[in-house]
């Protein structure tokens, strides 16, 4: 077991939990989006920590590819969520 793997992996767990908590508790739409992104970052960190094989060794490329896909997907979702939130805000302001 690599120390770095464990360190980063455990941190990832904490971040996932933090993000989840934020997503569940925040009233603000924007901050929920942020929270979900934080959670995503935690999951990505988990994957990258798993991929890590130690200094000087090539890491497992598969999780990296997965994370890249994940990031794109997360950005798409974030963009859509934000566009919706903006639309809602605009309508609320018009009221």
């Amino acid at each position, binding site marked *: 077991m690599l120390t770095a793997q464990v360190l980063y992996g455990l941190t990832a767990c904490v971040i996932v939990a933090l993000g989840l908590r934020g997503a569940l508790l925040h009233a603000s739409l924007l901050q929920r989006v942020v929270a979900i992104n934080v959670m995503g970052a935690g999951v990505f960190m988990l994957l990258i920590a798993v991929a890590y094989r130690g200094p000087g060794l090539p890491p497992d490329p598969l999780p990296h590819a997965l994370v890249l896909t994940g990031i794109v997907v997360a950005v798409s979702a974030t963009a859509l969520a934000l566009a919706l939130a903006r639309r809602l805000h605009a309508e*609320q302001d018009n009221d």
Partner: protein
Amino acid sequence: MNTTNLLVFDGLLLFSIVGLAWASLATTDERRSVILFMAFGLVLAVAWGRLLAPDVALAEAAIGAGLSGALLLAAVRKQSPGSSHTHANPDRNYSESGAKVVLQWLVTLLCAALAGTLAWALLHALSSAPHDTLPRAISDNLVASGVSNPVTAVLLNFRAYDTLLELAVLLTAVLGIFSLGQTTPGYQPAGPVFDGLVRWLVPVLILTAGYLLWVGAHAPGGAFQAGATLAAAGVVLRLTGRSRIGLPDGFVLRIIMAAGVGVFLLVGLTLLLLGRPFLGYPPAWAGALILLIETAAMLSIAATLLLAFVGGQPQSTAVNAAANRQREENSRC
């Protein structure tokens, strides 16, 4: 090299990451939250670098540090800056009571339990020897994949199907944003200094995008990072108050939006017709096909992210074809 010496570095880095995540979610001020999130992204990029994941680090640098921030900032409510009362819903005031506190504690406890369980399981997973079958398979087949960067090989060849669907996700997002109708109002013309920044930044970003696209074949980089960089150029343009931000109109825009999925599909189906498996490139052509697909994907990604920032379909004020053509010519950048 002794890794224990990086322990302090790792510790501080992780502490900052957790601190930023926590801080960004602890506040009720949207703007503060977003800025903290941007800082979080920056630090994450370093962390990915530290874990030898430069491909991801590039993406994080482009997205987490730059574009996400811009997107989020654009969505921060404009009416009540810095106010914690962001919801126009009057019922919310009710819930500032004991029940809410209990709920908060409950959720916190739940999330702590989640973190604990996850950590427990992860430690179990890490305690056994790493699974090397798949990495080995990847490196064994790398020669046939047409590229020498294993991450690109996975993304665009071994698991190209994922990437095809990922591009479909992007397309969906942009169509969804389109369907919301309107763009956000533009920005005021910026001052000369900002303009100065833009004048050198945009060409350099375009250049960098090209570089990332090319370099992806044998080193970290690729269509997504390139597309995000290109989109960043558009974002900067938009911020200077320009209405033309490098996005074409109408049909051309639709083609660009669809290019990623379209070219991917076209390649896949053509191969199918030629008697090969769907998305099974002949090794001799793989490199060229991947570059082709990546180029199309880059354009789609850039257009999508940019449209997301703009927040809707660019106003098509086409009065007549001539005006349209004129605009097209003006907007090539």
